[in-house]
């Protein structure tokens, strides 16, 4: 496990990351007879043993419902579930656990805000998104605009995949009610200057939702620094289980927002005439939540808290740089899509004459898992004039061998296609 220290040598770093790899049992297996090089972390990351054990324990011994029973098991489950909420609060430096709503994932978090906060939009209002967004940060706003008559406005990006800051500022105006933008682009890896963009949006009177799904496994995110109104992310991209996610919302907003779904746990009293709603954050958590999943998410947060993020950043960037250089130097006809100066560890690329799907199938036979396709970001693909890209995305457990294996797989593709 990595311990935060001010100075460390490159060799020390390598050794620490090698040890850390052992925490992830999925990485110990053979795929098509070859060691797995898992480079699809932007889609979903592997989880450490600590997460599996926390979930197994919850399921085996403590399984029960939360917030209702007076019996021992329910008290344990409630303590574990609410304990995870406090872990998440601390992890993102939110002011209060009342600002942490558990959801199924980033997509549900965004839909919650669009459906609930969105009710105050009127015809003529504007929702400003960026060209970098994942479909989950486009379609909920499109649906909202269809319902309310508001207008969806898209802030353009430059040829390197970075947001055009001047255009963003020009598009902000007194009609802009909501700004929704990715912290890190899933398709290109572009890192947006979120704090700066939030300040500009606030100056124009808009509230800001940040899609943080790709940011939380790589960066320290701090709600006080970013000052965004909403921040959405998923458990399964930060070494936790699928089916878990978080919506952070500033208390002042959450308090005035109507419920998203109705059901148990989100009410105080129910009668056929009228119901009154529970306090935050329970108002937004109707029905029995994914208790085991949230316990796993809490364990994933513990794991991330034990790691020095500055070292992770250096490690992942070393892998990204090496992979970028080698793909360009060694794979004829390769082109990188998304070359912004500030990027997270995503390498999206195309190779002349070899479709991304064929690359994906061929490297898979070498034990290398990458994502190929449009990455749920069709407008981004359109912007760069490609139907699909191959995407290798790195996490803290990847190493230089993984990069070597990727290159060997790509060489194999070139041999097959070019003889």
């Amino acid at each position, binding site marked *: 496990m990595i311990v935060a220290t001010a100075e460390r040598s490159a060799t020390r770093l390598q050794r620490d990351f090698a040890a850390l790899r052992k925490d992830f049992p999925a990485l110990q297996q053979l795929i098509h007879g070859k060691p797995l090089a898992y480079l699809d972390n932007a889609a979903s990351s592997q989880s450490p043993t600590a997460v599996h054990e926390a979930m197994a324990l919850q399921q085996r011994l403590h399984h029960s419902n939360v917030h209702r029973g007076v019996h021992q098991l329910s008290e344990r489950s409630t303590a574990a579930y609410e304990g995870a909420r406090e872990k998440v609060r601390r992890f993102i430096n939110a002011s209060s656990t009342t600002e942490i709503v558990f959801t199924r994932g980033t997509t549900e978090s965004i839909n919650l805000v669009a459906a609930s906060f969105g009710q105050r939009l009127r015809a003529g209002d504007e929702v400003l998104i960026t060209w970098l967004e994942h479909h989950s940060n486009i379609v909920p706003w499109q649906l909202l605009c269809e319902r309310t008559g508001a207008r969806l406005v898209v802030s353009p990006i430059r040829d390197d995949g970075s947001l055009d800051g001047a255009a963003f500022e020009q598009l902000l105006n007194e009609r802009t009610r909501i700004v929704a933008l990715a912290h890190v682009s899933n398709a290109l890896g572009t890192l947006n200057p979120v704090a700066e963009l939030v300040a500009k949006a606030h100056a124009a009177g808009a509230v800001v939702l940040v899609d943080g799904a790709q940011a939380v496994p790589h960066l320290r995110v701090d709600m006080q620094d970013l000052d965004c109104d909403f921040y959405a992310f998923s458990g399964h991209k930060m070494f936790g289980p699928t089916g878990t996610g978080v919506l952070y919302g500033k208390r002042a907003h959450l308090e005035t927002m109507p419920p998203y779904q109705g059901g148990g746990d989100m009410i105080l009293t129910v009668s056929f005439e009228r119901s009154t709603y529970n306090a935050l954050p329970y108002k937004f958590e109707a029905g029995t939540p994914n208790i085991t999943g949230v316990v796993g998410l809490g364990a994933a947060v513990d794991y991330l808290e034990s790691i020095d993020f500055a070292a992770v950043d250096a490690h992942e960037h070393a892998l990204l740089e090496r992979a970028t250089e080698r793909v360009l130097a060694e794979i004829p006809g390769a082109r990188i899509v998304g070359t912004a100066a500030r990027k997270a560890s995503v390498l999206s690329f195309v190779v002349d*004459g*070899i*479709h*991304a*799907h*064929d690359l994906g*199938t*061929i490297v898979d*036979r070498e034990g290398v898992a990458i994502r*190929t*396709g*449009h990455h749920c970001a*069709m407008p981004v*693909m359109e912007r760069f004039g490609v*139907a*699909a890209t191959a995407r290798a995305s790195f996490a803290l457990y990847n190493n230089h061998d993984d990069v070597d294996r990727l290159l060997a797989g790509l060489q*194999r593709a070139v041999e*097959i*296609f070019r003889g």
Partner: protein
Amino acid sequence: MDELQDLYREVILDHNRNPRNFGELADATRVVAGVNPLCGDKMTLYVKLADGRIQDIRFQGTGCAISVASSSLMTERVKGAPVAAALELFDKIHELLTAPHAHEPSADLDKLAALGGVREYPSRVKCASLAWHALKSAVADDQAGSVTTE
């Protein structure tokens, strides 16, 4: 022959590099748009039907080697064929790609048997089948339309 070579046989690579009957068909009587939502691949199939025959057929679009080769091989094979024969061929290809137990492809499939390589790659079956669904829609329906692999 390893599994990759079985998938990317020479005939597939050749038809991917030099797709036959590629481009628009100005006097098409049927136009079908095919989409594979999984990967965003798109193809448009142009068919000119007359006297119960496929008089001419062309396709356009972007896709992986399997999808382009499948479209190219298909157009080469059904050009000039009676509609009934094309529909029969659809059934044979469908069986080749998806039948639960592998068996020797019937001899009359000829070059098309190369498409059977996708059987070992479940996520790629749709790449091979898209063109054939578009063909079926083009010749079987009264109206032009669109198909997806979903």
